[in-house]
């Protein structure tokens, strides 16, 4: 059985047939030795209660997939890590890879493909402004420059407090313009409404 039907994703396993990743009993043959021992600094990453949440969360996620498809839980696992730590620290990536029986490189391959995953710490508040066509026709370009001026940031840059960036359509086309602050959705925006939202951010 192939773990994937795409040639370039097969990984050398040490088994006789390089394409075999899973043996007849369904056990993973591919478990890198380096990662089977927990890293020394892993305790520093999570507090005890975070670690418990993480372990429990991952176990729950793995139960959603066939036992020989642990790496399928990658997206939800990365989301869990990011919910706990606010971003994806390298130490956490190692733990995710280990739990999902895959490599850190594969975890990063996924993490860097999706814009919602932060592989470096974002500001305290990530502000995603939709500037796609439907929003632009209702003033999104003005909204963006209003925010740039107010926060003293250019779109696409961050400081310790804010990460301001343009994003693509947020399915708020009939209620444009819109933005999301740390994934909280705000629509039908006006200058007054933006002021109000920003004031509430502690």
């Amino acid at each position: 059985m192939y773990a994937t039907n795409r040639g370039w994703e097969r990984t050398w396993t040490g088994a006789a047939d390089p394409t075999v990743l899973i043996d007849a009993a369904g056990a993973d043959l591919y478990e890198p030795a380096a990662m089977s021992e927990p890293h020394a600094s892993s305790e520093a990453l999570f507090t005890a209660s975070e670690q418990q949440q993480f372990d429990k969360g991952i176990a729950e996620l793995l139960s959603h997939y066939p036992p020989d498809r642990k790496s399928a839980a990658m997206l939800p696992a990365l989301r869990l890590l990011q919910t706990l730590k606010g971003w994806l620290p390298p130490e956490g990536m190692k733990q995710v890879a280990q739990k999902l029986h895959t490599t850190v490189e594969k975890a990063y391959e996924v993490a860097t493909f999706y814009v919602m995953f932060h592989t470096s710490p974002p500001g305290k508040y990530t502000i995603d402004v939709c500037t796609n066509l439907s929003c632009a026709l209702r003033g999104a370009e003005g909204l963006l420059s209003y925010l740039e001026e107010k926060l003293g940031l250019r779109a696409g840059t961050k400081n310790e407090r804010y990460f301001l960036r343009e994003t693509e359509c947020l399915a708020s086309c009939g209620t444009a313009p819109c933005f999301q602050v740390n994934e909280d959705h705000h629509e039908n925006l006006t200058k007054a409404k933006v002021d109000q939202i920003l004031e509430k951010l502690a």
Partner: protein
Amino acid sequence: MSVLTEKVMMRDWARAGQNTLSVYKQHGGYAQAKKALELSPPQIIDEVKKSQLRGRGGAGFPTGLKWSFVPSIDKNPKPRYLAINADESEPGTAKDRFILENDPHLLLEGIAIACYALNAHTCYIYSRGEFKYPSSVLDKAIADAYADGIFGKKLLGKDFELNVYQVRGAGAYICGEETALLESLEGKKGWPRLKPPFPAVVGLFGCPTVVNNVETIAALPRIFEKGAQWFSDLGLGKSGGTRLVTLSGTVNQPGTYEVAMNTTMKELIFEKEYGNGLPEGRSVKAVIPGGSSAPVLTADELDVKLEFDAFKPLQSMAGSGGIIVMDDTTCMVRCLWRVARFYAEESCGQCTPCREGQPWMTRLLRKIEEGRGTEEDLETLTNVAQAIAPWPPIGLGNTICALGDAGALPVQSFVQKFKKDFLDHISLKRCPYGDKPWGALGEFR
């Protein structure tokens, strides 16, 4: 005139607490699934075929036919999967989000029917990463359905196990493409797969998989409530039922509406119940009819009915129902630049024509918009688009998935239908609309 008199999909959205299980059940919820589960799977598939239900995700493919491509269990004994595409991210489209927010159990009831028909014991709902609130409503709905014994070991008391999980994406438009969605569900980056084999034969984890849009599956309880014939009669031609469309851009009443298949574009934009026209003194210049990838229509082409096949003669498509209106003071080059930029940003990088071509077109458009363009640039622009996906007709793309086409079609149709706008930019060496390119409502207040 054809304004839809009775809502079908949006019927219960206004009811308080409709997104909770108790209210949903009080008003006959899950009764349709119980009814459907008394039929045999082939009978259910026949009903769906008879209803003329077509996929609401963009392609308009007949749902019953799609289901019948799943091989029989003796030919392929692997488990079957149902994947629900809730990764709504085509610019201009905001309809699935409202189904999740307002009536999540309608989707779950549809899932119960579909999984039983397909003999699928696991369903993954792939919802968009940015949908924090809709996802939380759906999570609650799924948990309630489990607690009530609807899902789990015994689906609605029947000897059939069904597990439903929500998986949230993480911000990649490409994952709305069905095979990229499957890759993402398998925990990988969303790179579309070559077809064939189609997902119905080799899908999730190499098993037969059906991928359906939220609105498609949410229509199933209605079909079993009033009958396939009724649903088919509601529609027009080969398109059964009604449609949810999102009206946005320069109209007085933007929003998400339910329309009949024979409602025309003009009615949608101008009727009081829908868009209620444009701001005073303005007229329609251009309309994107089905999400930003659909070739643009001019003001002369608005008598088209909002049914799937009606757009074919216009070399455009009904797509995902995202309708974007631009008035006569809107700069077409600027609009197209926004659209092209989106596809450049969202190209997954797998196929060369798309990965290289989309950013190239975006740079050329920016050059023209800023008044630095030449007629040669305009020719290069259409050449690049033609190399990614020749048009017309739709569907000749040179890339693995349709994202290549999606980026090339708007470029070709905008340049062909609004060539004057482009030439004006070149001859004036600036944007003729100055610092107000966005039309009557384009200012942020």
